[in-house]
């Protein structure tokens, strides 16, 4: 076997490993993202197509975060893995605060500050916010991501590491995209029966509750 074909085979192994790991632990990824993605889609992106598109944007945000991790892992190495748990706290706290602001704005904001709320809500309902939420969720270390990072550390090179993370993302995003489309479709179904403002309010409360959980988890990590 020539060195080139050996390299090709090694790369193929990396890509397949990434894809299989993504597919294998993808349900856990979905589990982690669901409390944020589902209310976000139900609140602002109802309909199967819109839900699908939003989940793709959200997933792209996660990809950016994964690529950043791939880069840092190559530059910093194993020490990053050690500091991940300590960096998780600020990300979780930040995510919690963001979700709290988002949730309260779309549920009760217009009762308190109508002018400010309309601006805040327009920002949150844009696709930029889906992307930003994706980045933050991607940066939040979860079990599947830690597994991917541990594997990536064994590669020791930037290019294979990036390729691995891209395929890991592809595998894990499959479920997210399906979930997005299904949630969008259900949101569209609900809108025929429940008023939009009520759906948005309930989703807002759910987002705020998820935010509180993220915030408290972040705080818990910080205190430990």
């Amino acid at each position, binding site marked *: 076997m020539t060195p080139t074909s050996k390299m090709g085979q090694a790369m193929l192994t990396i890509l397949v490993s990434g894809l299989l790991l993504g597919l294998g632990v993808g349900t856990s990824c*979905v589990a982690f993202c669901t*409390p944020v993605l589902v209310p976000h889609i139900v609140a602002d992106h109802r309909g199967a197509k819109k839900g699908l598109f939003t989940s793709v944007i959200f997933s792209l945000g996660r990809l950016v975060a994964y690529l950043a991790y791939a880069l840092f892992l190559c530059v910093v190495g194993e020490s990053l893995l050690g500091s991940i748990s300590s960096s998780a706290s600020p990300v979780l706290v930040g995510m919690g605060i963001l979700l709290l602001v988002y949730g309260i704005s779309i*549920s009760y904001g217009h009762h308190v500050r109508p002018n400010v709320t309309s601006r805040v809500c327009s920002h949150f309902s844009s696709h930029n916010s889906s992307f930003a939420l994706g980045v933050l969720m991607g940066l939040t270390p979860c079990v599947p991501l830690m597994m991917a990072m541990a594997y990536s550390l064994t590669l020791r090179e930037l290019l294979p590491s990036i390729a691995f993370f891209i395929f890991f993302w592809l595998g894990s995003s499959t479920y997210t995209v399906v979930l997005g489309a299904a949630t969008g479709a259900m949101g569209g179904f609900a809108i025929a029966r429940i008023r939009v403002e009520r759906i948005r309010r*309930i989703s807002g409360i*759910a987002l705020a*509750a998820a935010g509180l959980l993220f915030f408290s988890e972040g705080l818990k990590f*910080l205190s430990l």
Partner: protein
Amino acid sequence: MSVRKYGKALLASSGVFVAMFFTNMDRGFTFALLYGLVPAVCAFALLVAKRITPLRRAVYLTFTFILWFGFDLIALHERGSVILPVNPLTSGTVILPCPATIPMIFFGWMAYGQEVFVPGSKAIFPTTYNLFLVVFGLMLLQGILLGRGYCGWSCLFGGFLEATASGRAYGKPVKPTLDKILKKPSNLESQKEKTGLKGLFGVREEVKDVKWGFLFAIGLISTIALRPIFCEICPSRVWNDYPNPASGTYFWLSMSAIVGLFVIFWFALPLLTRKKLWCNAICPLGAFVGLLGVLSPFQVKIDREKCNECMLCARVCKEYAMTADRVAGSGKAAFECTKCGRCIDSCAKGAVDVYLRGTSKKVRSWFIPISLIFTFTWLSVFVWAIVTILPSML
């Protein structure tokens, strides 16, 4: 008429006795016999009494006291502490049959076909599949049959709110005036009428939706994170399952939030308003059983021919389920109705009663015995715990 009433009550209470006796047979003949007699007597008394509320409240308060005494006794026996200064999700040594975790169990079960807590956390709820099925099945059955009748008769927290929200608020507007929470009678022309009906239009939709948002979030997070998230805000954490004190700031913030929620929604607001705002607007468990209750055959409603629109039923309703616009409109109690019987007692014309849904057939003599069977079935777990554990601890 009176003989017929007593005969009916006797028949119903015999049914309650038989049900409770056979349910508890595996705990011994004497226990089953004695334990079966209590709900049977209660059912008889409730069916022949002129007013349901005093006796129901006495049963409910006793139920809550015994339930939590038994619950804490189990905790003390199984893990050596009521307060538990370790993470209960990872300790893996506790067996607490807590029905409040049902929404998480339900959604998890729907998604995965089995109880789904992470290893160790399963200990929060039944550790055996049979016990899980019993608790889960009982809760579903009660929800489907009685709807929020669960909240009015056998909620494990209900007795506390029953105590703090009890007392007369009759004939007076709710104090202090909670304009941000209550619906305004804006469509009424006369100022006098507006003042007279103040506080009788129920809670604003924006406030009532909190429970749906919580249920949505709890359902999602618990299903996918495989954690009983409700436990994070469970009011019983004031005397149970503290977070780990070693976690410092988190411990203090968490405890402040839990105690704050408890003081506001379980003491301050019920004492001030004599209403149960927690049950109406916040409780996700109530929302869950209410959802199941869409299928319930029991419905509290007003006989329009007898009603003189005195609004007494709306004034005494602790759940904001019977409101001024419902009395004047459909006559049916709202989704939040816990079938506690206060409106039935208050009506001088006897216009309010429990009806078979969609019909004009009164079914109070079915509703009360069934409610008591469920209440005493829940309680039997804890009474049995007291009977078996307490002597060995003394």
